[in-house]
């Protein structure tokens, strides 16, 4: 095999790259993965008032600003040693669940849907949202757009602005909602529950009732037995907004449950010479390489991991679906990467049900929305479940609340090691000596990483508006054999 070292300085051109190297016989020799490095956020944040962080950090990511805003706001609670009022906490959680409905709907219908609805071998020109709508009908397409539009209205109404909320403050939120707004949010929440049920029915009809697809979901090519991470409430049930981080081992046994401020005791980051990426792993298990199993510190923090790490859902319809999923998948925890799509839809339904609970709470229109902080700020950690994984913010300030140090573990990064393993395994299983490398084959490799909903931060919003990612396959001489690009 010809050894090719990839120099990150010369290889990186502003987009993610996956390079697959083949042996002389055409089998896979190795896989590399790189993303662009954003520079200087810590320096950028230093010297700024901590109260600005919910506004600043939500600009880091073009995909999930609401998650950063919420994690940052919770970090300010911890930093200023103040608890939000009960009503403020509920308003935050209500907005956050509306965000989950929009984000999960987008992923399933726009990103994942085409694989299953159109099929992995469909021509690329048809394998997109327009093809999906042509096949499933305008009615469902309209329902997707409506669910997103309505829940963006909820985010804007509670958060004060579309896309970038400005309501999170240490000790609470900046505005209450009135009865008229509450009534409209209740309608949207109930309609979102119906949308969640409809989406699970679509999944059932199209994926689960298709033996080929179900076999693919359950196949070894798309399976990794790793630890699972997710935020849980006091009863070990899934909670996106608050709680402790629970990690279960590949057999489903609780490995650790930690409070946000203890994250440094449990996570460490591994560095490889061929990429800027840092790969988080469980410190007490240790880094053993890109391998599965109980002895490897690799963990996943995805929708499926969150369900694996919890004992169930707090809402009735989502709980039913949760039980159905594990029953179909042969028990809990489940390690089938493609089942992440299923878990995502169960989370969507849960988020909608939770919205109904919160918006029907008599306290939701209370104007008691802020506890004014009085303690001297020093250090704080805040954690939420971002749709793409556990999101941790950590700030240290001086006594005036000026940032001296900040550290973020962004949702996507939790899954970098598993993402890499998934791409490598799919490539090794699907690219075989003498077998033609077709579009359909490459798409199946893409399907191995699509469930992670990888987010490359800033790059995702730039025109023409796609996540820039490139897969190149090289032969044993280092010649390019095939290239697949998106958004480049």
């Amino acid at each position, binding site marked *: 095999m010809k050894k090719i070292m990839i120099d990150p300085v010369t290889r990186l051109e502003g987009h993610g790259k996956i390079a697959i190297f083949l042996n002389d016989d055409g089998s896979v020799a190795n896989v590399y993965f790189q993303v662009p490095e954003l520079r200087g956020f810590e320096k950028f944040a230093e010297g700024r008032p901590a109260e600005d962080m919910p506004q600043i950090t939500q600009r880091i990511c073009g995909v999930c600003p609401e998650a950063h805003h919420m994690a940052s706001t919770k970090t300010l609670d911890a930093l200023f040693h103040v608890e939000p009022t009960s009503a403020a906490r509920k308003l935050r959680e209500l907005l956050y669940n509306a965000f989950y409905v929009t984000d999960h709907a987008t992923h399933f219908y726009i990103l994942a849907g085409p694989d299953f609805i159109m099929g992995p071998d469909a021509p690329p020109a*048809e394998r997109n949202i327009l093809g999906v709508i042509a096949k499933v009908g305008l009615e469902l397409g309209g329902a997707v757009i409506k669910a997103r*539009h309505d829940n963006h209205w909820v985010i804007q109404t509670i958060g004060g602005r579309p896309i970038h909320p400005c309501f999170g403050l240490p000790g609470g939120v900046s505005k209450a909602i009135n009865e008229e707004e509450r009534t409209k949010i209740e309608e949207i929440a109930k309609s979102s529950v119906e949308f969640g049920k409809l989406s699970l029915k679509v999944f059932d009809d199209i994926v689960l009732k298709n033996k080929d697809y179900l076999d693919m979901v359950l196949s070894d090519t798309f399976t990794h037995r790793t630890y699972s991470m997710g935020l849980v409430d006091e009863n070990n049930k899934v909670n996106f907004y608050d709680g402790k981080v629970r990690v279960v081992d590949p057999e489903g046994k609780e490995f650790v449950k930690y409070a946000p401020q203890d994250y440094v005791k449990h996570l460490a980051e591994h560095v490889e010479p061929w990429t800027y990426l840092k790969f988080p792993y469980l410190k007490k298990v240790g880094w053993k390489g890109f391998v599965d199993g109980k002895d490897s510190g690799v963990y996943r923090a995805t929708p499926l991991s969150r369900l694996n790490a919890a004992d169930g859902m707090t809402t009735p319809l989502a709980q039913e679906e949760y039980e159905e999923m594990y029953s179909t998948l042969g028990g809990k925890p489940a390690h089938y990467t493609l089942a992440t799509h299923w878990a995502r839809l169960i989370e969507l339904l849960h988020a909608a049900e939770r919205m109904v609970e919160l918006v029907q709470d008599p306290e939701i229109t209370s104007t008691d929305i802020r506890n004014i902080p009085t303690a001297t700020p020093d250090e704080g950690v805040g954690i939420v479940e971002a749709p793409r994984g556990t999101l941790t913010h950590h700030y240290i300030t001086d006594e005036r609340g000026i940032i001296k140090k900040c550290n973020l573990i962004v949702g996507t990064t939790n899954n970098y090691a598993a993402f890499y393993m998934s791409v490598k395994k799919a490539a090794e299983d699907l690219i075989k000596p003498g077998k033609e490398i077709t579009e359909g084959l490459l798409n199946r490799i893409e399907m191995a990483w699509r469930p992670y909903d990888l987010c490359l931060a800033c790059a995702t919003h730039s*025109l023409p508006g*796609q996540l820039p990612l490139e897969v190149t396959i090289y032969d044993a001489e280092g010649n390019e054999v095939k290239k697949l690009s998106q958004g*480049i």
Partner: protein
Amino acid sequence: MKILVLGIGNPILSDDGAGIRVAQEVGNQLHDPQVTVAETSEAGLRLLDSIVGYDKVIIIDAVQTEKGQAGQIYHMGPEDFSFAKHFSSPHQINLVTALELGNALDLAMPQKITIFAVEAKDITTFSEKCTTEVEQAIPKLVKMVMEELVG
């Protein structure tokens, strides 16, 4: 006629904030109730949410092309991005697909979309300032947007 001037970008990521800077300056100079000036860091489907209901939309953004020179200005229509639909993964949604989706769903889509873009030099360093080359292009872009609004 309802007109939207939409700056796209990330205001804390060097040249990526150019579109937003231009939109803000246009907003300062303009006092026309028919024109809404907005900014966003979003694309794709969320971009569709932003532009529905307007008759005319002017988008300003930063781009990086293969052979472009930092500060170079482009004046384009959505059709200039159509290559992306055919040469990229079908699983993302780009501007053209978003517009087609809006039409397919019979949403109130703009009759005209104009895109002004500036070639970025640095979009990976956190900073509220653009590079010198892009900074110099901003007043020119503002003038072009103002002329487009009159025209």
